């Protein structure tokens, strides 16, 4: 962060409220732009993270284009072809009801990505709200909110998600609702921590002293600084959400048939794992690679956004 100039702004410019007039005073804005650009460069240099990003991009593109690609209908049951081995027409084989595995795998990717993204969206909203309130207001509100968060934190999350899904019924919306409702605690703590630290910084005091409205402080100062760790946290949360959905589907609380999801594919494939292992292997490997890719990207982001990283 570049240093503030020793000169104080002239009373006239301050009184007119044109805070943006002397940008060199409010260095966070510029340094955060610089931080992101630096971070991006560092991220690109990280081989593993780069590989991860390419893989994820591939998965996302294929998933989005699922309807357009020349794939078989994922729910169509080809007669007399249960457990068919991979062939030219069906590169990954067929499952127990004669459905094309490749097509189901790609449609399953949609489910996984949707769950990941929407769950994280819910986590972001709740986490920002709770963490933001606690960090910004401090005092008793902070205390109570943190107690609430701690109690939530103590409930093992997978268990909690299972119970919620069992209660609400198995459906796609309920799954990412459940995941979102349970896993926001880390993000809330993070946001709160960031806010608490930043509150004490001089520029915030300065901004408040000249009467800058709270929301403006939040938007132009606190959030951009918190954005880095929050992004890392969310990125780490994506593979967790994907995994949770797979586990739920495996237990039987996942999406309803005949919708394809990697977890349900594994669960159904498990019934014939000895004679048709490809039914379990393909979705399992897809799951593992996707999670790996997201974790690599998360690691890379974390390293790249680390302000102490001087490379």
């Amino acid at each position, binding site marked *: 962060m570049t240093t503030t100039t020793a000169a104080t702004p002239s009373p006239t410019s301050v009184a007119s409220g044109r805070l943006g007039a002397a940008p060199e005073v409010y260095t966070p804005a510029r340094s955060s732009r610089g931080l992101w650009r630096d971070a991006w460069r560092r991220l690109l240099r990280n081989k593993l993270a780069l590989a991860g990003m390419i893989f994820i991009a591939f998965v996302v593109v294929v998933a989005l284009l699922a309807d357009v690609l020349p794939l078989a209908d994922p*729910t169509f*049951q080809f*007669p*007399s072809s*249960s*457990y068919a081995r991979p062939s030219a027409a069906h590169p990954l084989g067929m499952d*127990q*009801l*004669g459905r094309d595995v490749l097509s189901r795998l790609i449609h399953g990717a949609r489910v996984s990505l949707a769950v990941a993204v929407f769950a994280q969206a819910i986590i972001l909203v709740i986490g920002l709200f709770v963490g933001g309130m606690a960090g910004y207001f401090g005092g008793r509100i902070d205390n109570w909110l943190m107690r609430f968060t701690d109690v939530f934190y103590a409930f093992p999350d997978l268990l909690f998600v299972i119970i919620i899904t069992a209660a609400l019924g198995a459906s796609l919306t309920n799954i990412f609702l459940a995941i979102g409702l349970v896993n926001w605690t880390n993000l809330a703590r993070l946001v709160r921590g960031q806010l608490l630290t930043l509150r004490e910084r001089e520029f915030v005091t300065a901004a408040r002293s000249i009467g800058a409205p709270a929301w403006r402080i939040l938007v132009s100062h606190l959030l951009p600084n918190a954005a880095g760790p929050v992004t890392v946290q969310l990125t780490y949360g994506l593979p967790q959400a994907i995994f949770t959905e797979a586990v739920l589907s495996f237990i039987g609380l996942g999406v309803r*048939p*005949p919708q394809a999801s990697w977890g349900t594919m594994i669960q159904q494939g*498990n*019934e*014939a*794992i*000895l*004679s*048709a292992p490809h039914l379990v292997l393909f979705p399992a490997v897809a799951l593992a690679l996707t999670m790996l890719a997201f974790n690599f990207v998360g690691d890379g982001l974390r390293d790249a956004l680390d302000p102490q990283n001087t490379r």
Partner: protein
Amino acid sequence: MWLGVRNVIPRRRSSCARLAVTATMCVALFASPGVSVGQSANVPQEVTVNFLTQGEPDSLDPNRASFGYAVDGAVVRNVFETLLRFDENLVPQPAAAESYEVSLDGTTYTFHLRADGRWSDGQPVIASDFEFSWRRLLASKNQYAPLFAAAGITGVSAPDDLTFVVQVKQPSGALPDLAALWMAAPLRPDTVTANPDTWATDPATYLGNGPFMLSEWVHGDHLTLVPNPYYTAHLGWPLPTLAKVTVLMETNPEAAYAAYTSASNAGPDWILVPDQEVNSVLNDASLTAESRQYNELTTFWLAMNNARPPLNNTLARRAISKAIDRAALVRDLATGVSIPTTSVIPPGMPGFVSGLGHDLDFDPAGAKALLSQAGFSTASPLTFRYTDTPSDLRRAQWFQDQLSSTLGLTVQLATSGDYDLTFGGWSADYPDPQDWLGLLFGCKAPFNTLTFCDPAFDQLVARADTTSGADRSGLYAQAQTQLMQDVPVAPLFNRGRLVLIKPWVDSLKLSPFDDCPGSLFLDEVRILPH
């Protein structure tokens, strides 16, 4: 048991592992009196079986049987001995009762118990034990109680220690079958009334009069049966050769299969092959050599709505039945080991008539002819109802394709509402025609959802139901013949299963009425040296 549209097959499959002779045990195991090791004296007579494929038993109390946990019967029927017992042809034979007679008007059954029946603690088995149990069963709200009530049982009594009397409202030819069901096992009034809820969960209080007794129960994992020291061979029923039976509770049929096929011989000694592995077994020469096929007392059929045109016409229904290639059906939808059939009662039980309904078998030309004879317009579509699951959809689509290619019919698939066709079936509660005919196809039958009604058939069935003795089977055959001429349903196949049996298991009898393969005649199994 009703296999309606929803649950065509009892959802939890029953798989049974073969009795496996596992580790060699020392002779000390055979110290209990009365246990005979038989010819294979030096081989430990131990097996491991996966009878309890639904996991931890709901309850091993005979009076608390339930449709959902039918496999518990595999254990109960070996720990208890009922008045009569089914033989290989599924005809009830004297067991705990050495004889019985029926009064002239058919309303009183008198069972004479054998004097050497003993509980596993040495107490003699007396008639009031049966009286206590039967009263308890009839008074309970158990799912099987209606079966006994439907037989018209008005009262049971025990005039003396070795005489047990059952009164029925009208003559009931099926009473001997009911008396051989494991729910009708005797119970010890003292133990049961002392611990009404827990007597069946503790080996110490779980007293039985059968060939085996419960020696250990590790909940959720397995239980162990050992011979009942006070059981004696009698009336052709032998002493058990096995000295120890470990009953597993593996709910995942694939895992049981993996345990059987793994190189270490520590798994079950016989298992029911899960449907998805049947092909891999048949493609493997060594596994095929160890496999045996048998059919269950289950028939699946294409149920037709007899009230609605166009299927209210017998000719049209017969045409539909002739349009189904059952061999292809079995191959595509039923793992290939099921048996096509054209009559309702399955083979292996009294009442089965071989070749009955052969004119309902696959015959596309004949079907077309019948259809035009019936004045059926192929333009109007038929509705096939199925449950909204992918496997049901698969089955529905198969029928849709078949009827369209054979007869040119248009079949629409629907998950609710009125229907013309649907997949259905029935599974025997007890191996007697009475369980199959009157209950399902009678005009006022509780399970008749087909709106089928043929007074001639009803008459035949009513007469057969109230006859006992040699005439019964003839009357039932007539009734079934009449039924097959009416074609209310198009019988498709009897469910067949494949069992894998380790080569050292000998004298294993598979019966269609097994709750689990091998459970009916467990006391005859022996282990060969290996």
